[in-house]
């Protein structure tokens, strides 16, 4: 074998590795740009007044985002109420009947549901709730978010319950405990941590959602505790203020972005830590 041919192959090998490593590191750069930008612009805006006051009209400096924080929390609560019971039961269904043909179709439906673009979910909530009720409302926004949470919760429940060993359930049944009680008091509690993780993940997923809320929750400059009226949320506020031409509003949007990013990334990290700690093991 000739020397130069081998050297060429080694050079090709080395340069390929260099390119891969460089590109891999290059693709995580945007993350640092975004974090740096959000932190440097946002942190100077954050103070107690910012968190506890309403936004001020154009031209006045100051103001805060209290209504958006409250609105975000309210919407999350509404969507949890709608999605968790159905989601957990459907997850139990998928786990219990996993061999059936019907369950296969349900699973396909869930995967399709997960892939629906968020803006289409917004249209659906508009058709189902906003049109009949005649006004934008927090309720319709909550339903839209619940539709987005549902597939995540169902999948998490199913995957967790599959891990619970049959011996546990058989032990319970052998003691004469009825089937419903076995599921509700033995199997579900054993998988509780996994299900909770799924719910946390789904909350983290929808907290930053804007598209489904554009024509459901709509946004509002006022504090509002009535879920039948338009409600402001952090992502909506960021969108509305960032695309406005006013610098005061841009400042508010940077502050709101900082709060949102801290909340969402915090929730993601928390879920990760908790997953490791609560891992369903047998």
């Amino acid at each position, binding site marked *: 074998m000739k020397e130069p041919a081998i050297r060429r192959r080694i050079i090709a090998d080395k340069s390929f590795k260099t390119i891969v490593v460089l590109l891999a590191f290059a693709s995580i750069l945007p993350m640092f740009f975004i974090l740096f930008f959000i932190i440097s612009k946002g942190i100077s805006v954050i103070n107690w007044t910012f968190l506890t006051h309403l936004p001020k009209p154009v031209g006045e400096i100051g103001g805060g985002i209290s209504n958006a924080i409250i609105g975000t929390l309210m919407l999350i609560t509404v969507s949890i109420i709608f999605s968790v019971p159905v989601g957990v039961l459907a997850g139990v269904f998928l786990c219990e009947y996993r061999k059936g043909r019907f369950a296969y179709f349900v699973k396909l439906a869930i995967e399709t549901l997960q892939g629906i673009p968020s803006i289409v979910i917004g249209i659906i909530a508009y058709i189902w709730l906003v049109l009949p009720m005649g006004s934008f409302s927090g309720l319709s926004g909550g339903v839209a978010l619940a539709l987005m949470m549902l597939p995540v919760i169902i999948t998490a429940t199913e995957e967790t319950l599959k891990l619970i060993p049959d011996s546990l359930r058989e032990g319970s049944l052998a003691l004469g405990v009825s089937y419903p009680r076995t599921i509700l008091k033995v199997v579900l509690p054993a998988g509780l941590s996994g299900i909770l993780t799924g719910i946390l993940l789904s909350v983290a997923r929808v907290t*930053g959602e804007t598209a489904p809320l554009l024509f459901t929750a709509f946004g509002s400059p006022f504090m509002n505790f009535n879920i039948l009226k338009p409600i402001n949320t952090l992502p909506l506020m960021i969108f509305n203020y960032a695309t406005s031409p006013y610098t005061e509003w841009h400042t508010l949007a940077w502050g709101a972005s900082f709060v949102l990013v801290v909340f969402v990334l915090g929730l993601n990290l928390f879920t990760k830590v908790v997953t490791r700690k609560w891992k369903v093991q047998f």
Partner: protein
Amino acid sequence: MIEKGRDNVSVELRQQLGLLTDSSMEDFLVRIHRRTMAGWKFGLSESFFRKILYVAGTFVLVLLIAIFLSLVVASIPAIRHFGVGFLFGTTWDPVRGEFGALPFVMGTLFVSLLALAISTVFSLSISIFLGEYFRGGAVSAFITSVIELLAGIPSVIYGFCGLFLLVPVVRALEIKLNVAPYGVGILTSSLVLAVMIIPYSASIGREVISLVPSDLKEAAFSLGATRFEVIRKVVLPYARSGIFAGILLSLGRALGETMAVTMVIGNSNFIPKGIFSPANTLASVIANEFTEATGQLYLSSLVELGLVLFMVTTVINIFGKVIIRRMGMGDK
């Protein structure tokens, strides 16, 4: 002793002695039974419980069908008015009541495919980096968690940062190239979108690459192949369809992505002329005009755009999932 005297001792005496009478024994058992069954007063029968489970499962199926039907019903006025020509109409003019989807279909395709082309280079590198070169250890863990964080950032934040970080850069580039310096447009949205979809194709690509059997690779190494040759001739061909599925699934994401694109695409309802021109995608035009839509035809045309988006993303997603299932990657 007690056993023997049991029958003789009167009920009163037994109560005084603290022993159980037959009837109080029954009470006692019932009490214990109730306590263990606490919170269980409805007497949920097995068949009823199974019915509830079935209802929950059916609900999800019905939900999906209802979503599809609602979209179809709400877009009937537009379908009836424009027919199939809706998809090929080149003008979108709400004032004159003329609605054609072609500008947005073109815009969506342009933006998504360009984003896909940009992101594939990077996501493939990450896949090879994590699936082949650094399969464990601190570097791999670091990159993995940064990528996960990248996937967790809300899309409105991407749009906001794109608007203030990327738009000035693109505008400067446009001035240098002597084209109209909008700053916003197809290139800007594709760049933002590319960053957003990297995590999806990267995580699938990494998985399929690390699934390549090591005896195949070792066989190639033993024949004297360099690592680059192994990757090019063994790993990538083996993982090809999985990588393709990852790209397909991230295309599904890109097509439906709304907020980030809406903020940097420039909202122009004309067929885009080049990569610097402002445009609109299916999702962004819905986001922009839905609340302002007056009149039934306008609104139902927008819903029909949503219906098109729904069907395209669904087909792409199912296709991608089928490929992945064939690869034997389970439910991931």
